[in-house]
């Protein structure tokens, strides 16, 4: 067995109405003046109200609301939220929302804890001591941001994507409340869910970094997702299915933050940065292309997934691996997700566009974890094939 490190600093609390206990949780973590980071939709919908009440009751102070986080957060948003929090002497954060909201809160937490110049903390493992208490309450089931060590925000003015990575960035607690995701539309349920499927599959075959711990999380997450993601997409009120996808997404998040992802994510990051495509949907389009690229190198691992999910009893690894790819194809079809980059709204890819995308994907940290080395031509062929 290869040497490995497995680390999960986030306490996970799962249950219907659990979000209404956020006040007690943040109080237990020592917070008294809480910055509540969320988005405008969640504020308007009233979904934040039980959380606000709970924080007010437990801490004696109403939380300071920052609900201006867009779906594609930016450093300017981080700076605004940080300034507000600093002016109000906030000492803890609660993030309620999708990946963009949670990542924004993580970066705000860096500003609030350390002050100074944020760029000093850009990079991997720079942050070497605990931040202020942060609770993450995901309202989508897919990103795994509620447990991950990484936060990404854009600098739209400079045209850059900023990455911050450290185990200290992981929230102290993830509160998984299935009631908070029942209103998520079917299309977003499917798109965020396929992101979690991609985490599970790519992490399971990550090069030299996966472990028996992450393997176990990936397998169970994939079992839950294959069974319950179609149900949650078809009927948003199915709380059992909602809960299963939420738990599975979190499990896959714990796995990938310990072991990495791969080529599908590297390409999806590049396409998202250039064309603003939805991360989960882009992963959905690229996933089987990435799996086919890795197929020969990872047949044994794909076969393990296929056997665990009872997709086939064949003893032939390659045959089993191909069955897994076919099952993913079937899942994408059932979820009615876009199947090509063209369907995602990406315009005809010129040679210059392709070169730029290949360069971006080739320098994305995710590509390092892919089990098979990918040349520029390999990346180009995948993009062309997915178009």
């Amino acid at each position, binding site marked *: 067995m290869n040497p490995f490190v497995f680390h999960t600093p986030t306490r996970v609390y799962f249950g219907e109405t659990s979000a209404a206990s956020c006040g007690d949780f943040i109080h237990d973590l020592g917070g008294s003046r809480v910055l509540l980071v969320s988005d405008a939709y969640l504020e308007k919908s009233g979904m934040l109200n039980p959380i606000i009440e709970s924080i007010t009751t437990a801490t004696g102070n109403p939380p300071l609301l920052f609900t201006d986080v867009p779906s594609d957060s930016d450093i300017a948003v981080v700076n605004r939220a940080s300034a507000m929090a600093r002016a109000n002497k906030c000492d803890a954060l609660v993030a309620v929302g999708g990946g963009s909201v949670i990542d924004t809160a993580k970066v705000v937490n860096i500003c609030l804890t350390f002050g100074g110049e944020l760029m000093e903390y850009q*990079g991997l493992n720079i942050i070497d001591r605990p931040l202020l208490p942060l609770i993450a309450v995901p309202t989508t089931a897919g990103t795994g941001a509620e447990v991950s060590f990484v936060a990404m925000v854009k600098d739209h003015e400079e045209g850059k994507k900023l990455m911050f990575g450290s185990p200290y960035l992981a929230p102290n607690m993830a509160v998984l409340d299935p009631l908070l995701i029942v209103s998520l539309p079917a299309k977003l349920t499917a798109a965020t869910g396929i992101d979690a499927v991609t985490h599970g599959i790519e992490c399971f075959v990550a090069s030299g970094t996966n472990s028996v711990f992450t393997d176990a999380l990936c397998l169970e997450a994939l079992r839950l997702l294959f069974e319950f993601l179609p149900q949650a997409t078809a009927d948003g009120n199915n709380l059992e299915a909602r809960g299963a996808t939420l738990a599975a997404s979190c499990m896959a998040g714990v796995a990938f933050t310990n072991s990495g992802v791969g080529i599908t994510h590297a390409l999806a990051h590049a396409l998202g940065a250039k064309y603003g495509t939805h991360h989960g949907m882009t992963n959905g389009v690229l996933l089987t292309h990435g799996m086919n690229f890795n197929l020969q190198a990872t047949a044994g691992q794909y076969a393990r997934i296929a056997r665990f999910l009872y997709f086939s009893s064949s003893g032939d690894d390659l045959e089993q691996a191909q069955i897994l790819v076919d099952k993913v194809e079937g899942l994408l079809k059932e979820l009615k997700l876009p199947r090509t980059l063209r369907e995602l709204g990406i315009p005809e890819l010129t040679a210059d566009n392709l070169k730029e995308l290949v360069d971006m994907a080739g320098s994305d940290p995710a590509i*390092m974890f892919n089990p098979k080395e990918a040349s520029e031509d390999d990346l180009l062929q995948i993009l062309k094939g997915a178009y």
Partner: protein
Amino acid sequence: MAVFADTDELHQIMADLWTAIKSDDQMAAPLLSSRLIVTFHYREPDGRLTVDCSDGKEMVITAGECDRKPVVEMFMKSSVAHEFWLGKVNVPMALIQGKIVAKGPVNKALALLPAIKPAYGLYPSIIEKNGLKVSTT
């Protein structure tokens, strides 16, 4: 136990290695195209090496203090650097384990890893040439 006897030994080996990389067009070209300034900070023993490709024409290698502001900084034990140049470090694992700390736009530096791979083959001979008592196993 430290791999290098002292800072001078560390600086000499790393500077010689990067001078060899600079002399190899195949390795130097992508580094110069990147126009990056990368500073490597070593510990046990302490040391510092800056590789400045900012003018896109000539790579400037400085061992020790350097007044150029780096775009990317990498921090690691000298023993990790030694194992890296022997081709024995699983970089993703080292990043996950925190054995390598990377400051700045890390993706730009990681993108250059494939370009410098041929230097793995040069490293043992540089150690040997310098007559330094450094283990290559």
